[in-house]
């Protein structure tokens, strides 16, 4: 059934596209945090806490995409 194929492609696009933005953002955040840690090792603990917080907010976007993908896959019959 062609509709199932379209839903499958939509699911793949939902998770595939939604990883690109957060992936780039997380890479940028992590690289900056590591630079900061290298420059100021004594502030590493604080930087790590805010880094994980920032990563969690970006991660949420990917998770929304993953959820949409799961919902679409659940519609395939």
């Amino acid at each position: 059934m062609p509709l199932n194929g379209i839903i499958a492609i939509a699911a793949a696009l939902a998770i595939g596209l939604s990883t690109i933005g957060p992936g780039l953002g997380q890479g940028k955040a992590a690289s900056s945090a590591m630079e900061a840690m290298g420059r100021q090792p004594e502030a590493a603990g604080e930087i790590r806490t805010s880094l994980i917080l920032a990563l969690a907010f970006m991660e949420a976007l990917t998770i929304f995409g993953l959820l949409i993908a799961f919902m679409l896959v659940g519609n395939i019959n």
Partner: protein
Amino acid sequence: MNKLFVGIANAAEAGHHAPVATIFGIEISSYTTSMWLVMALLIGVSFLATRDLKWFASGLQNFLELVVEKLLNFLSEVMGEEKARKYFPYLATVFIFILVMNYCSLLPGSGTISWLTTPTSTLSVTVGLALCTFSVTHFFGIKEKGLSYFKHFFQPYPFLFPLNIVEEIVKPLSLSLRLFGNIFGEKMIGMTLFSMIPLIVPLPAYFLGILFGAIQAYVFTLLSAIYIHTATDGHH
């Protein structure tokens, strides 16, 4: 729209077993029984550790004291020593509870034994936890500041009121979806890899599961602490 909800229900119930038991017409799912197991474990360990308290702690008591101290230090960094002590019971309970629930997926037989599964891999449990944080935040806010707590909905400008309301509603939504998505996704990856190649190959996924289980419990507690901190923060 209706199909959407059917889809999310299917996704959330994928791998869901038939109800384990029925008590007074209420169906008890495997998620509930797993949560009972976690509760019994936590209560039992705490009871054993605190039954015979000593000034110079050793063994189990020592370990639990270490856990409590580390959690208190971490919360003090976020919201200050005084507040951390005040809201410690709720936040520490949430952290330990979520951590042990996430690690349920590492138990042998989890997912195949009918009454044992990962409770946080269903949306119902994570939404319940997020609603706990939501109500606790506003309760503490009103308790701390009285009616002037509602002023922050009209700041910085009164016409931003709808946006502030949306923000408050999005908080528990993203909190629950983040936890659910991570744990459920982790479980799915493990199951998929296992069904393809049962030996060795799923191992990295399980190591990642250990890491993500801890990080998600950490993030949930951190965000709850920050929400409570901002809700009870005085304007001075």
